């Protein structure tokens, strides 16, 4: 750790400027005298010298950064990183419109720094609490993205935003097979941090929450330990806790026509500030893994509609062969892909063409205190042009054979604004 610290190439030459709170100001780190040179917290992209050598066991370039600024927020079309930290936050009572606006500015500054591989701030004051919490020092940035979203309740009038509410932003209606825990539902704001390094993702949410203290407080939080979707043709398909490949038929970022049609918002959102954004639907889906593990292999495959190892549709071919829903089973009993198979009911063919961009993660909250079984499953995240897309799909899944093994226990919807230009902050257009 110490070696990494002193050898980092530290891209800290582009400070975000002192914020109102002074949180992000300063230079030097952990006693300036002891450490020479650039002192980034975690290392920036490329040319990391010995820093890169220390992470040579990481597949790909762990120093790679994802641009923070752009047409759309990063963390949506970005090839899904391996790890997630997700915070749902509520604005504390007594917060004014300008407090909230200032917080979003501070968050922008901090997020721009962290995603570039820098600390939140450089610490020089021995008697001040460190500006950055420090746990990610020495950890490569690992493609960190930070994505912010606004929940329906943010537009309830507390901050004069009622007239800025996107047309389709609302709590989801009651949906099949859910038993929602209010402790994992809704929120005024969300922060999605994704990285290939779990510590880096966690660090981002922790520090944004810290910066927000007094203005926002955590409503709930979830950590995802393995991506369950592929969002790019450059990625292999990962597996979820069912042991099956997940996201084979997901929209891929390279399919820009589908992204425009099903993921990015435009004029239909009814809000100028929201053009180029996307709705984020989060669902905490518990998988009763012990029950699932007892099901025999052939039935597991019939429940999903795919072979377990290869991931091929049961109508034949290989993983990416298009499913033939009309084909009969080779053993002659009904269709090859059963009528209640998950992949049939979730398919766009079955849902009038509707698609969403799934970007979920496996999670665990430990052990169920009553049952002694795993409290874990899929932390489902999906981006879409309108939450009605998810509602349609989830209603189709009322008949899903998989429902025997899962239950939706958390739910939230957020409007993720479009990307920022250099110099812009989250909230600028919202608060205009």
């Amino acid at each position, binding site marked *: 750790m110490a070696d990494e610290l002193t050898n980092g190439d530290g891209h800290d030459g582009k400070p975000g400027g002192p914020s109102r709170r002074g949180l992000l100001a300063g230079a030097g780190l952990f006693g300036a005298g002891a450490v020479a040179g650039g002192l980034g917290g975690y290392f920036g992209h490329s040319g990391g010298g010995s820093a890169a050598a220390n992470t040579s066991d990481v597949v790909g370039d762990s120093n790679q950064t994802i641009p923070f600024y752009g047409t759309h927020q990063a963390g949506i079309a970005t090839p899904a990183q391996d790890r997630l930290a997700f915070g749902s936050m509520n604005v504390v009572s007594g917060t004014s419109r300008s407090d909230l606006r200032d917080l979003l500015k501070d968050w922008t500054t901090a997020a721009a720094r962290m995603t570039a591989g820098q600390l939140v701030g450089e610490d020089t004051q021995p008697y001040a609490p460190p500006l950055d919490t420090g746990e990610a020092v020495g950890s490569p940035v690992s493609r960190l993205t930070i994505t912010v979203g606004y929940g329906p309740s943010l537009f309830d009038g507390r901050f004069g935003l009622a007239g800025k509410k996107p047309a389709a932003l609302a709590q989801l209606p009651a949906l099949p097979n859910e038993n929602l825990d209010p402790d994992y539902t809704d929120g005024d704001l969300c922060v999605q941090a994704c990285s290939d390094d779990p510590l880096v993702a966690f660090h981002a949410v922790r520090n944004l929450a810290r910066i927000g203290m007094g203005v926002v407080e955590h409503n709930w939080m979830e950590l995802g330990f393995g991506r369950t979707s592929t969002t790019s043709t450059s990625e292999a398909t990962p597996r979820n806790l069912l042991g099956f490949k997940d996201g084979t038929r997901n929209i891929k970022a390279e399919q820009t026509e589908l992204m425009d049609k099903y993921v990015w918002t435009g004029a239909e959102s009814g809000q100028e500030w929201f053009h180029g954004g996307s709705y984020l639907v989060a669902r905490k889906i518990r998988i009763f893994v012990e029950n699932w593990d007892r099901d*025999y292999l052939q*039935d597991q495959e019939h429940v999903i509609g795919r072979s377990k190892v290869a991931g091929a549709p049961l109508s034949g071919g290989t993983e990416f062969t298009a499913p033939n829903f009309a084909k009969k089973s080779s053993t002659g009993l*009904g*269709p090859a892909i059963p*009528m*209640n198979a998950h992949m049939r009911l979730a398919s766009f063919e079955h849902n009038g063409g509707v698609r969403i961009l799934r970007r979920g993660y496996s999670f665990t909250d430990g052990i169920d205190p009553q*049952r002694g*079984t795993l409290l874990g499953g899929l932390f489902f995240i999906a981006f879409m042009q309108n939450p009605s897309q998810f509602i349609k799909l989830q209603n189709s899944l009322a008949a899903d054979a998989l429902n*025997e093994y899962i239950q939706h226990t958390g739910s939230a919807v957020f409007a993720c604004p479009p990307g920022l230009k250099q110099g812009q902050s989250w909230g600028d257009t919202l608060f205009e």
Partner: protein
Amino acid sequence: MRLDGNRRTMRGRTPRLTAMIALVTGAVVVAAGCSSSASKSKTTSDSGKSTTVSISLTPQGCAPKPAKVAAGDVSFNVTNKDASAVSEAELRTSNLSKILGEQENLTPGLAGGFELTLQPGTYKINCPGASQQHWTLTVTGKSTGPSWESNPKLASAVRGYTTYINQQTADLVSSSQTFCKTIDAGNLNQAKILYPRARVYYERIEPVAEIWGSLDTEIDGRWENPVTVESQFIGFHRIEQLMWSDNTLKGAPALCAGLMKHEQQLLTLVKSAQYNPLEMTSGATDLINEAATSKISGEEERYSNTDLPVFKANVDAAMEVVSLLTPYLQTKDPGLLTQIKQRNAAVLTALSKYQASPGYDDTGYVEYSTVLDTQRRQLSSSVNALAEALSQTSTQVGAA
């Protein structure tokens, strides 16, 4: 797919078994859905030739041409020339309860289709939106039976299972009648005692009842799982909510009449159902999974706290399957049989700690809300161990 119109009537656990059990509709074996193929049954036609049925979607309907075909492989070609109000054709069982195949989203100008292997019998073509929605398709010829039938021990086990399910369902109906009469008489306290006594029969046959997903929801659906529309919350658990949460029988007689109607429908359907050994073992595992999941958490009987007697009913019915399959398993895997019996004994020991006389509402057990989380974990641990052993039985019977 909407199994029953547009209603969300499918219970969470329903669909898999829906597909697993070959239904008999009249004298007809309809090999529907998926998992029965594990029995390696040969159901393709003797000739191996495929018959084509053409269906043209029109505002008037979806008449199959021809309307009578031989059993075996059948290809359905569906076309929509210019019917704007009709966009799909489904093949259903003759009582319309199950979709066997479908072609959706056929707007004018489009064509599509699906293939199935059909056993002899009567089927319905269903095309929502047409002036005549249901059309009959007749399949002629001989049906073919699965290979396990030639094993006398398995054949005997399946016969025994059929008898058991029929008897439990008949007992469900008669005990529910007694329950409903008490409700009609306005005797709330006695009705509370009779509620779990009727429930236990349902909890023994549930994997079978789930074949008919909408009926399962109408009889046993829980609020939020899957029922989220107030008018659809109508079965046992709605009455339970009235009696324990609202402490009233107001509205209960009408709900009970509906319950009886659905149970009678279930009884009729059960009488003509057929099962296979894999469905028996899978159903037994499902029962224990259910005990381990919704009973342990108290979700199932959340208003009455009568989870313990129904927990016991789940275990009893699973062990009935083991008992019926014992002659077969004794030769195939005696070690597994021993393990299952030991683990069942451990469950009964764990459960016996909560026996009481006469017990909460005369159930023979304490009120479940008094069982602490740490105690629930002990119960859960024993029942999960049993489920794990039980799930191994499919290895033997599925290969038969």
